[in-house]
């Protein structure tokens, strides 16, 4: 490859981007060259996707410049970036399954014969394009009849037919088998040989190290550094990804190991396989892993929100059947969901109503009717206890800040006095102060003897809060390690584990 001499095609300079409550990118400057495979890596929320979306014209940067082919540009919309040759292959495929392969490739730029679409011409041209990658695909067949991997290739072919100069691939291998992923990596190399700049985002460090010419590491919205091929080193990349963050606001207490309260044996379901672990009262068990490792699916299944294909769940030693969240709740579980807006709260209703919905049975009057007086009493008490900042308990939760919303989600479980509390990404999208309060609450709950499961993609949080850390990778529980001596590197290695780790557990 000739990337040393190849010219810079795209330069981003001092790019910053704010979202309400978070600074997603802080003055990032990076350059990309024609004919290189440039990997961008970082933890979840490091700002990779935001940066890509700015390059592709989906978002506008608050600050900074994009210089493309020597000219300063400012995309009005993604369409403009695509026309200029910057094409993104998204995680979710954008192939239209019931249109033919050729129609997909030429979507929006159909080959015409007079006023009519010339299918023969389109099929012929598609054939030529598909030959580049050695694909045995019939262009006249509906694209949906091919595998996901082939569909991805069809998308890439479409990009090439549009004369792409830069192809951005966001986690392209996440839904592929190993063989398919290898084929895709091969294709990426072919693309770079044709002079295309491939920007590659992946959580799978192994494949990044194998295929990339350069690796840029983002962390908390900042560029930590760019490594050239001769500087590649797995440990170094991991170190750059996790960094050393001082989080003085973590307030961790030591928890005594109580008795076993929950045991899961060989649980298998959609998104996870063969997971076994025990949970003890009074502990915080952290679940680490990358996005898509199957942690949320596992927790939702334990809670009865998803179906389990096989495996057993024991509570206090007794095997239980959980077919609906109501079963789990009756067994003493509470669940704070990852997506509080979609799953945790009824946004258009008030704080009081949300708290009441989870506790209607408890709050009913002697005659069995809903009792507003008791609801008001309980809501006021919880708002005070959890220090939820709101003008009134009748405020719609829609208008609360993220941290206060999360406190409502947490608070509504408390009247039930749960024995097990599952918290899925409890601090996502909330500010530092509110985070500290959530940590404090978690500690208090554990000290009360509640068994807490905390799923989190933020390593510092996992390390600081957990008594034990369960690490998942690609649907399997790789290992459970004591929280005391764990390091970020150790957890990250397990979380990005390749198949060799899979036999453990």
């Amino acid at each position, binding site marked *: 490859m000739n990337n040393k001499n190849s010219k810079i095609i795209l330069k981003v300079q001092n790019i910053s981007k704010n979202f309400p409550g978070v600074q997603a990118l802080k003055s990032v400057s990076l350059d990309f060259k024609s004919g290189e495979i440039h990997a961008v890596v970082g933890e979840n929320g490091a700002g990779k996707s935001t940066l890509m979306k700015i390059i592709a014209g989906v978002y506008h940067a608050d600050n900074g410049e994009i210089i493309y082919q020597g000219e300063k540009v400012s995309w009005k919309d993604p369409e403009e970036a695509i026309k200029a040759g910057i094409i993104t292959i998204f995680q979710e495929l954008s192939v239209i399954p019931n249109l033919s392969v050729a129609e997909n490739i030429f979507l929006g730029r159909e080959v015409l014969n007079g006023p009519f679409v010339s299918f023969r011409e389109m099929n012929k041209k598609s054939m030529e394009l598909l030959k580049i990658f050695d694909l045995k695909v019939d262009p006249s067949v509906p694209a949906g009849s091919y595998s996901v991997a082939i569909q991805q290739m069809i998308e890439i072919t479409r990009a090439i037919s549009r004369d792409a100069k830069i192809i951005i691939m966001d986690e392209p291998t996440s839904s592929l088998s190993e063989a398919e992923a290898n084929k895709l990596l091969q294709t990426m190399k072919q693309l770079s040989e044709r002079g295309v700049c491939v920007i590659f985002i992946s959580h799978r460090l192994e494949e990044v190290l194998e295929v990339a010419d350069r690796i840029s590491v983002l962390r908390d919205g900042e560029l930590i550094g760019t490594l050239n091929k001769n500087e590649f080193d797995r440990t170094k990349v991991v170190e750059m990804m996790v960094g050393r963050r001082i989080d003085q606001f973590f307030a961790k207490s030591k928890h005594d190991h109580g008795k076993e309260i929950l045991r899961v044996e060989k649980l298998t379901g959609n998104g996870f396989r063969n997971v076994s672990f025990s949970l003890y009262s009074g502990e915080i068990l952290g679940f680490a892993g990358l996005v898509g490792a199957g942690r949320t699916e596992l927790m939702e299944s334990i809670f009865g929100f998803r179906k389990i294909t096989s495996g057993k769940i024991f509570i206090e030693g007794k095997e239980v059947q959980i077919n609906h969240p*109501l079963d789990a709740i009756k067994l003493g579980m509470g669940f704070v969901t990852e997506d509080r807006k*979609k*799953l945790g709260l009824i946004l258009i209703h008030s704080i009081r109503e949300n708290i009441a919905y*989870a506790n209607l049975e408890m709050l009913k009057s002697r005659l069995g009717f809903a009792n507003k007086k008791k609801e008001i009493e309980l809501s006021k008490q919880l708002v005070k206890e959890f220090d939820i900042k709101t003008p009134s308990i009748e405020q719609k939760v829609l208008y609360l800040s993220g941290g206060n919303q999360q406190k409502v989600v947490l608070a509504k479980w408390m009247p039930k006095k749960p024995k097990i509390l599952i918290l899925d990404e409890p601090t996502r999208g909330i500010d530092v102060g509110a985070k500290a309060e959530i940590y404090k609450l978690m500690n208090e709950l554990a000290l009360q003897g509640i068994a807490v499961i905390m799923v989190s993609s933020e390593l510092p949080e996992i390390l600081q809060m957990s008594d034990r850390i369960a690490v998942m990778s690609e649907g399997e529980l790789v290992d459970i390690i004591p929280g005391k001596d764990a390091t970020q590197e150790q957890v990250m290695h397990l979380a990005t584990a390749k198949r060799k780790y899979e036999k453990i557990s």
Partner: protein
Amino acid sequence: MSEKTSFLRIIKRIMTIKEAGVFLILIVLMAFLSIFAESFLTLDNILTIILNMSFIAIMTYGMTLVIITAGIDLSVGSVLGLSGVIIGVLVIDYGWNSFLAVIVALGVAALMGFTNGILITKARLVPFVSTLGMLSIGRGLAYVLSGGWPISGFSESFTFHGLGKLGIFPMPVVYMAILGVIMHFFLKNTIIGRRIYAVGGNPEAATLMGIKKDRILILVYTLSGFFAGFSGFLMTSWLGVSQANAGQGYELDVIAATIIGGTSLMGGEGSILGSLLGAAIMAVLRNGLILLEVSSFWQQVTIGAVIIFAIMFDQFRRVRVS
């Protein structure tokens, strides 16, 4: 200036009460009609209006619950017709006791709704499709059972429920009031009623809070069927005839009344009181247009425009409040 701001605050306060906007529309409409249509504001005419609205209003009690769950029930008009025909066939053709016949008719109507509920929750049909199918099935069955002929010859004790009066109030109005109070209380003050709001506000979140969503949905469609059946009973009793085509197209009036009354098609919001006001607006409007001697063709145009206006007003109100 402070007077002005406090006045504005009071207005804003009133606007935050959900039913206030609808009530305001109703008052303005009635004020307008009392000025321009002489015979509008007479006791007789007002009683006619509330009698006319009662059949629709009773159906909105079920429809309100359905729409709060973000669903829709297109089958209510057909269920009304079927219920009336069942009563006619059982009482006149088979000589059944009319009380028993009504119970059977209400049972069948509830069963139609229950079937909708099952199709929506278990077979995962969207409400629109399931109830559209049931619209056709219900109407078809009504024709099959009646052979298409009107059935008449009911006893006075049966027609009392439609034609009789309690004091000055026609019986259908009395039923509308009693059922309205019960349903308002049911929706606002019972645990099940509260769960209906929760499921409508966010079905996944409600499930994760331990609410059995499917049961709630089956219940609301069953109730919607029941109330349509009840309206069929009252209408048959009022007309003294059961006809297979009774209630044809009523689903649109019922849905319109419900959404004019502030029940959100997005789910999670709405009330029986609002729907009652919505039904009143529809009835006042029809009555007023007749009194103003507007041709029946233009009446339809006007009603359509009012529906759109009322909902735009409601959306405007909502944006303002937030």
